[in-house]
């Protein structure tokens, strides 16, 4: 193990490590702690210049209550949810199929198609922006959730296919061969043999894509406007102009906007990290 396990070090080193650990964490999360502190302060603290000290009164409920009841925040959150969930389902479904095709079959152009998916996934968004915006306008999908969903599915397919294909390739191939010998139809092999084995990959990818889509800002700004379709990342700008310079409310709003993927991460940590680090180990 590297570095040397702390248990094998002198007692003083162990105590030192245990003491440094929380300090390092506080330092690392300092900007966030400051914002969390902002969000439970009363407005008076900002007037009196008490920016960093303890809140003079504990206003968690009134600040967050105003976020939920006096702004468009709930609508934006709902939009985010209604955009994110269909996208996750669509992207995972498309890429599971594509990954199966690329991972199991050998045919001409296999690697080429695979590499086009990967390359497309790395492309800068901006080169797609003008034509995609135009396309959504032509299809009457501009400023709708459907438009954003369809486009996000297409764009995520690149990364998801890379992920699925590599996972399927690592599955034991004799299983598929055995099924073929039995005369099982190919689509049944996909459905009954490969898909059940892919459960961990499906879970990992779903959690990962959920976070990516929820946090997307660029496409939200390019393809939507206004509270009818905009997700929370774009809506927060409007929220902040509503509560201009009211730092206690703006911080509460951003914490609310950031929370769902954070909750998702802490609940599904194992899958999330497995998804993120696929390929980090050979």
């Amino acid at each position: 193990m590297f570095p040397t396990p702390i248990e094998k070090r002198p007692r003083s080193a162990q105590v030192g490590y245990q003491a440094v650990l929380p300090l390092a964490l506080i330092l690392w999360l300092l900007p966030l702690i400051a914002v969390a502190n902002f969000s439970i302060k009363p407005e008076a603290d900002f007037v009196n210049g008490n920016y960093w000290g303890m809140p003079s009164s504990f206003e968690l409920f009134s600040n967050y209550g105003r976020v939920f009841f006096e702004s468009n925040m709930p609508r934006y959150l709902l939009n985010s949810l209604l955009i994110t969930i269909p996208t996750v389902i669509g992207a995972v479904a498309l890429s599971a199929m594509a990954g199966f095709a690329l991972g199991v079959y050998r045919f001409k152009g296999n690697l080429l198609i695979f590499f086009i998916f990967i390359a497309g996934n790395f492309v800068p968004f901006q080169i797609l922006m003008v034509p995609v915006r135009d396309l959504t306008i032509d299809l009457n999908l501009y400023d709708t959730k459907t438009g954003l969903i369809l486009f996000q599915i297409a764009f995520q397919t690149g990364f998801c296919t890379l992920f699925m294909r590599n996972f399927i390739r690592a599955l034991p191939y004799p299983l598929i061969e055995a099924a073929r010998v039995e005369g099982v139809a190919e689509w049944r092999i996909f459905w009954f043999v490969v898909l059940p084995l892919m459960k961990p990959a499906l879970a990992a990818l779903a959690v990962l894509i959920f976070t990516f889509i929820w946090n997307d800002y660029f496409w939200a700004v390019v393809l939507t406007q206004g509270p009818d379709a905009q997700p929370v990342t774009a809506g927060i700008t409007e929220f902040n102009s509503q509560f201009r310079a009211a730092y206690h409310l703006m911080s509460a709003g951003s914490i609310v906007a950031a929370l769902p993927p954070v909750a998702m991460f802490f609940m599904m940590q194992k899958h999330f990290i497995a998804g993120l680090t696929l390929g980090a180990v050979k």
Partner: protein
Amino acid sequence: MRNEGGLMTYATVPDTDPQKPRGWYKRNEIAVTPFLFLAPAILFFAVCVIIPIAQSFWISFHEWDGLGEAEWVGTANYERLLGIGDQPMDRKFETSLWNNIKWLVLYLLAIPAGLFIAIFLNQTVRGIRIYKSLFFFPFVISQVVVGLVFSWFYLPREGLLNALIGLFGFGPVNILGDPSLATYGIIAAGLWPQTAYCMILYLTGLNAVDPEQVEAARLDGAKGWRMLWYVILPQLRPATFIAFVVTIIGALRSFDLISVMTNGGPFGSTRVLSFYMFEESLSEFGFRMGYGAAIAVVLFFLMLGFIVYFLWSMYRDEQGAR
């Protein structure tokens, strides 16, 4: 060795009823199935990614406000952008390009920083798992919120940063208001989640380091830096490669943070190509889609250099895997 058996095995499939003529699909099942499975993904990807790339190239040779007729102007957009002929290079483009280079170089700091934190946290004391999660979770927060959090952190009066440096007797600095500092302030904000990402990659990598090699090296008297450099880092190569890929792509994609923290200002000093392109295409002063597309094409070629390198590395691995 993987798929070779496929067709041959198929030929020996015991047919339950040899007299029954088999349909075209049945006979060609193995050849056709992959394309059926690929069709939806390819359709989506072609319509929303591949074709738009080609269209952007086409638009970049036009002058177009997004509504009326596009007017063919040849390479005029590129000439104006790069300053070919008797005109200077577009000043805003020059600033953006320089900022992109700053982003690329400084963003790479996330890799050693992530490695450092991973080594620091790679212990088995009580509660370490919670520490690892908490160190990682800035990555899960959206860049928009990271941008807001840091812009409040930097505030000259209300921001915690100035309170801290005030303790050491340094005067308040308005990082995001100072054209010479603003870009660095934004990059620092971007490094925060990116370092967390690299950290988690390295933590996973360190977990898989071969303990026997480490022990053997230890017996040979290797420790500290030498151990890290000669024994550990070579084994972390896959993690380093991925960290490199995601960091480069992340640096060139920087848009959210700039948009949220400074909106390109002060005095346009924090623009990068992706942001400048957005600004030109959808600005209040009228949509200049053609010029925007030309900027996007330049950014695309900048990225293409890296993409080709990544794909080439992956291709070599694929060949090795066979």
